[in-house]
């Protein structure tokens, strides 16, 4: 039971990440590989605050978002003027740079040594050291973010995002300030990623830079694409697939050395096959 609860918490954390990227990629059409960096920022803010000060967990989440907002605004402004191809490379570059900062600014982040002993929150007199309680916390946050995203895509704001995705120039010609919309959604999704990072830090009690590298961004990208672009339920399925499948393989009895590589092989194959036959992902409604 504990094991399942653990998996459910993992699912919630990565589902939030997937949703955040889906809003950006599936609905607005921007391929961003930077979200692992915002994930990391949220994690580090929470980690540092909870370990060194008496800040409460929720406050640290808020502070994480507050930190991420101006940074993502700045980064968004740099990157959104590029065409799609360059945009993708720039976002990758930002991820590498921010990873470098996490790893090398060891006076702040402790570098590769990581930050350990991050406590679980105690809120409203409930102690979240128990995993089942933590799962509730994670699910509540996931639900809030899911509903919020669901709401965004239904409003006129969301409709404009979709027009930007289809053809930004046409959207501009209708009078929409596309740069504003792209920036706003970028900042919103970056903040979501930061929230997920805070959850991650407190749950695992230890973080280090390696969890926030380019590989993680590619994982989130894969989850979003395979689950389905512009489909929030699709993202949940995609996360389920990516997180559960390797765990299932633990039980099949294949020697562990090969399992990981076989899984990578399979993911690669699935990605290729999907691109060739169903590029919108399993439940997606939008083809790249």
């Amino acid at each position, binding site marked *: 039971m504990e094991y399942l609860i653990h998996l459910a918490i993992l699912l919630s954390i990565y589902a939030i990440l997937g949703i955040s990227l889906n809003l950006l990629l599936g609905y607005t059409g921007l391929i961003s590989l930077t979200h692992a960096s915002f994930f990391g920022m949220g994690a580090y803010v929470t980690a540092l605050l909870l370990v060194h000060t008496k800040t409460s967990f929720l406050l640290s989440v808020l502070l994480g978002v507050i930190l991420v907002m101006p940074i993502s605004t700045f980064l968004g402004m740099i990157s959104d003027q590029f065409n799609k191809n360059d945009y993708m490379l720039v976002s990758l570059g930002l991820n590498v740079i921010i990873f470098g900062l996490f790893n090398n600014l060891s006076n702040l982040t402790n570098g590769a040594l990581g930050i350990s002993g991050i406590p679980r929150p105690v809120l409203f007199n409930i102690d979240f050291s128990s995993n089942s309680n933590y799962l509730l916390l994670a699910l509540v946050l996931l639900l809030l973010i899911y509903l919020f995203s669901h709401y965004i895509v239904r409003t006129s704001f969301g409709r404009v995002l979709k027009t930007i995705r289809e053809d930004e120039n046409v959207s501009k010609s209708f009078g929409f300030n596309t740069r504003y919309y792209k920036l706003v959604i970028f900042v919103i999704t970056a903040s979501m990623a930061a929230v997920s990072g805070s959850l991650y830090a407190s749950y695992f009690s230890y973080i280090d830079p390696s969890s926030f590298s380019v590989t993680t961004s590619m994982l989130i990208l894969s989850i979003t694409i395979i689950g389905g672009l512009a489909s929030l339920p699709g993202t949940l399925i995609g996360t389920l697939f990516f997180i559960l499948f390797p765990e299932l393989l633990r039980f099949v009895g294949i020697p562990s050395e090969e399992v990981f590589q076989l899984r*990578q092989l399979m993911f*690669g194959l699935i*990605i290729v096959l999907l691109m060739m036959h169903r*590029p919108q992902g399993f439940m997606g409604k939008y083809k790249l």
Partner: protein
Amino acid sequence: MNSILPQLLINGIVAGSIYTLIALSYNLIFKLTKFSNLAHGGVLMIGSYVALYLTQNSLANLWISGLVGMVLAGCGGFIIEKTTFLPLRKKGASSMVLFIASLGVMMIIQAIIVIIFSNQSWNLLSIDTISVTYSIFGGLISNTQVLILLIDVIAILILTALFKLTLFGKIVKAIGDDAETAKVIGIDTEKYTGIVVFIASSIVGLAGILISLDAGMEPSIGLGFLFKGIIASIIGGANNFLGPVVGAFFLGLIENVGIWKLRGEWKDVIAFVVLILYLSFRKIKTLKE
């Protein structure tokens, strides 16, 4: 501190020479297929690991292994193009779809290599190979590095001759500039694309082999080298044939000389900062016009 500058310059030039091959070959494919092909990094590793397999099992000497590695890398890239990217392009897939597909292909190649060869790092030369160093302008360069530079220069010359001076090269340029018109004139764009992919893939395979000769190869670094090549081709100017060469040497130099003042762990950050700065300035320039 002046005394180390020559050495840093030499280090930068050697690094740049490897980036050159990656950048040139990447650009060749990019001009024709118009998408960021991550599988190119996988093809780089194919070249390297084929050569490893042959030398490790004493099936061939260094030169033959290298040659076979190049050819098989070329075949690998060609097969990938024909089975994956060409059908996708025919379906009208966008460049983003192709990019994602290339990510998948890269994952597959990397997984297969690790299953067969494990994650160890290795070098093409046996450890007993005697290394001779020469001193130039106050810096040291090893015979292996000189060899790498020579091979690099030869490759650049051959490629330049091929693509700038022959009819073949002109046709390829025409396809790159405007594929539709080329087809209308009657050029078999698919055939030429296939040939160029083969050549470019064998060149990037050569890059992989040179990396293995120089510092050493490990499955996890293939993608990183590809990114350096992509950065180099962008900052050098993708429209000029030799642009990527300039970009590559510039990148190699700035990485190595850049850590004169910074610590080595910032190397990757430097490369991407250069990219972002370049792209931003380019954008500002086009906005002004």
